[in-house]
Every structure is written in C-alpha cells, then in structure tokens.
C-alpha cells in the first residue's frame, strides 16, 4: 500500500474532554478512504486534524503526528495555508463565497498566485468547472452570483473551487448529507471519477454510501479507531465485534 497520510499516536481534546484517543492509521494514496461510525464518535474531529482545522476551535488540543508524504504538518515551521492548499475540504453544506461563479473558482488560484494572466485563470476556471461536472450548467452565467445556484450545484461549485488550488487530498465531511438524492449521486460519481488523481477521505454516516465509495475503511467508536482496512475485508469479514454490530445496524 502506498501511504499518503500517516497518523501516529494522535490524541485530541476539546477542553478536558478527549475526542480522539491514540489514533494510528494510514490513508492510502489515490484511493477513497471512508471514515464511518456512530454520531459523535470523532469522525469530523479526525478529519479536521488532516487540514489543521481543529485549531480553529478555541480550546481544542492535539498531540501526536500527522504525516503527509512523510512530513509532519504540525511542525512549527509548517505554513498552515500551504497545508490547507494541499489538503482540500468539501464541507457538509456548500458555502459559496460572496462573489460570482467564476470568481468562486478563481479565488483560490488568485490568492496563491497560481496563474500568470487572465487567460490562464479563464482556462483553469473552465477546466475545474468541467472536472466538477458543472460547466454545462453554468457556462452562460459565470458572472452571476454563486448564491443563485441550487444547493446541489453549489456543492459541485465548492468541489471545483477546491480542486482549482491543485490539492493532493480531498477531504469530505458528509458532503452529500444536505443534498437531494440526485445531487448526492452526482457528487459520489465525481468522487469516484477523481480518485485516480486525488487521495480522498470521506466521512459518512450512511453505510450504503460507504459501501458504494470505499476502497479503504476506518471504523471509529467513541474516539477510537476500532478497525481499519481494505473495504472488502472490513465489510465482508470484520475482525472486531463492534464493527460487525455496526454493519448489522445494531447501533
């Protein structure tokens, strides 16, 4: 297995309340890893440690290592904006930036000064909107407010804008939970198409979605990783009693 993200002895607390306990996992490169487990077990918290979002919570504390390509992103000399550029996030609900559809996609490239001229931006905006499967629907209204899009379109716009900063990893925290079934399918399809180019980590609360997407599975319970491994093994032959119970829908 080609490891992209490696987590060593990771612990996290909100105040004095532990949220993650001794996490040791490996996220394979260019596959979809699904994190599942009951509500409140720490899935979101774990995901937030990958793009250093946990530190946005006052009082959140973290110990241990998160190595991306072997480099610990919590070392003091690491530039947090660079971490977040390399590790993109698709949130639970889409929040378009208060600007046009075009500018939403161009924004990230712009702050990182990734293109030389207007033509460069234009071509990239088109490219990433196509990659997110939104180009056909918005090409005639690029300069209209992004807030005018449907919520499903907004989520694909958020995908496009995240891809535009050329990340290596896509994180998704229940990225379809606010969407209608058709829009969810759209996003799932895109994630499957993109996985050959991006390492993808998705949190989901629905077992069916986990089965549709996962190459690799991490099952969590009360802040601990109970079981992790290739999807086929975990789904068909879980090693832990808790995992088996969860897969059978017992909690």
């Amino acid at each position: 297995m080609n490891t992209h993200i490696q987590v060593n002895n990771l612990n996290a607390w909100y105040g004095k309340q532990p949220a993650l306990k001794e996490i040791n996992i490996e996220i394979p490169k260019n596959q979809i890893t699904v994190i599942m487990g009951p509500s409140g077990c720490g899935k979101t918290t774990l995901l937030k440690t990958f793009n250093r979002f946990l530190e946005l919570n006052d009082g959140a504390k973290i110990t241990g290592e998160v190595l991306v390509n072997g480099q610990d992103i919590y070392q003091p000399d690491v530039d947090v904006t660079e971490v977040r550029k390399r590790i993109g996030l698709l949130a639970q609900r889409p929040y378009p930036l208060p600007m046009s559809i075009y500018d939403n996609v161009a924004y990230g490239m712009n702050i990182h000064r990734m293109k030389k001229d207007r033509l460069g931006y234009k071509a990239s905006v088109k490219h990433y909107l196509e990659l997110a499967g939104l180009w056909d629907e918005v090409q005639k209204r690029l300069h209209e407010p992004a807030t005018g899009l449907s919520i499903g379109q907004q989520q694909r716009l958020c995908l496009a804008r995240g891809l535009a900063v050329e990340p290596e990893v896509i994180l998704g925290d229940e990225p379809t939970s606010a969407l209608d079934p058709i829009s969810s399918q759209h996003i799932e399809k895109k994630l499957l198409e993109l996985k050959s180019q991006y390492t993808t980590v998705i949190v989901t609360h629905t077992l069916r979605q986990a089965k549709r997407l996962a190459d690799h599975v991490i099952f969590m319970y009360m802040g601990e990783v109970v079981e992790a491994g290739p999807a086929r093994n975990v789904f068909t032959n879980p090693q832990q009693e808790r995992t088996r119970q969860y897969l059978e829908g017992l909690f």
Partner: protein
Amino acid sequence: MKMNRFHRRHITESIAKGAMLLSFLIMAGSLGLILWTVLYKGLPALTWEMISQTPKGGFYLGKEGGILNAIIGSLYLASGGTLIALALSLPMALYLETYLGKSSWGRWVRLSLDVLWGIPSIVYGAFGFTLMLALGMRASLLGGIIVLALLELPIMVRAMDEVIRRMPVDLEHAALALGSTKLEVATRIVLRQMLPGIVTAVLLAFGRGIGDAASVLFTAGYTDNIPGSLLRPAASLPLAVFFQLGTPFPEVQARAYASALILTIIVLAISLGSRWLAAKAGKFTLK
C-alpha cells in the same frame, strides 16, 4: 370550556394587534406631522436664493441672502467626520472580530464603545472645545470634523461589529480551507459579505453627524462665509435652523423651516442612495 379559552386567546391577539397598530400609527403620524410641518412652513421660504447664496447684510433681519454657507459647511463637516470615522472604524471592527472575538478584551472594547455611543453630543462638543483651547486652536472646520468623527466612531464600529458578527463562520472556514490567510479572509470575504451592512452603518453615522448641532456649536463655530480652509470656522444646517428660529422675525423663522427642509432632503437623498448602493453591493452576498 374549550370554546372559552379559544375566545380569550382571540381577544388577547386582538389587543396585541391593536397595540401594535396603535404604536405604528403614532410613529407614522409623528413622522407625517414632522414632514408636513417642515414642508408647510418651510416650502414657501425655500427659494433658489436660499440655496445658492450666502447670507448678505441684514439676512437675520429678513433681508436677502441664503444659507449656502450652512449647506456646504454641513456637507463638509459630516463628510469629513464620516470619512475619518470610516477609515478608523473599519480596521477597528475587523480587528475586534478577527483577533479579539469574544475574549475579555473584546468585551471591554465593546462596552466602552457602547458607553461612548450613549454620551450626549454636547459632551463631545465640550470635550472638543477644551481640547482645542489646550492646543490653542480656534473654532474651525477641522475641529468640527474631528469631533464629529469621534461622535460617529462608536456608532459606526458597533454597527459594523454587529454586521460582522452576523457573518456565517462557515463561510470564513470555506475560505480558510482554500489556504487563505486571516487577512485575506477579512479583506476579500468578510468585507465583501458585509458591504451592504457597512453602507448602512455609514449612513447611520452620517445621519447622526449631519443632524448634530451641539457638537459643532463650539468646535466648528459659525460663519456667514463658505469655509475656504480647514482652519476657518464652518457653518452648519442644524445651527442655521437654531439661530434663525431664535429671531423674533416671522420671515426669518420661515427660513429656519426651509433650512430644516433642506437638511431633511439631504438626509433623505443619502438614505435612498445608500439603499440603492446596498442592494447593488448585496447582489453576491450570502443571505
């Protein structure tokens, strides 16, 4: 039994509705009455001469001239004060939100701003006057602008602070997730989302600034000339109303109402203009 309760609830609702309607009518009625009084008493005296000339000799006895000095003076004073207040309050509000947040320092700053907001404008005037005396300054446009800026600052910062606090935190996170710095989030995202609210805050402050008489009474003084320099005294519309209304001559008193009418029209125009601007700025914002 059940019918009865229904009945009581309906009566309660009718009373509440009636009370709300009554307070609305009182409010709308007073506004109408004010506008009507100003129009009725001021319109006959509102001539081209009034708005195009400065006072000539004997103006305050009913002879010819106009209040161009006060119109220009008020626009200078309020625009200058608002501009300075804006330049100071925008970074203040952003700092308050981005770096102080809900910390105890943030609470202290907000409390002091609220206290400042509540201080009567005559106190600002007296404070400014004392300060100017100490500095050896005379009543001047600059003095008036500075005191108006101080008067408007707490209004503007707190109004913007409220606007910024209504900013959805998830939107900031969306920008941070793309690798933005805090400064980029503040200037490119927060500011844009808040622009309509900021326009409204500026208007609020400008309205208080241009309508205030007490703070400019000692600090800007009054003059029949259009101020030619920041260090010369400046007239203002509220004081023009005050002085003219204080004379025993009916034609001068009518001009006071005309001056009030001009002030009202200016405020109305700025209010409508800023609404239009806010709607334009709000085109892209998250609702």
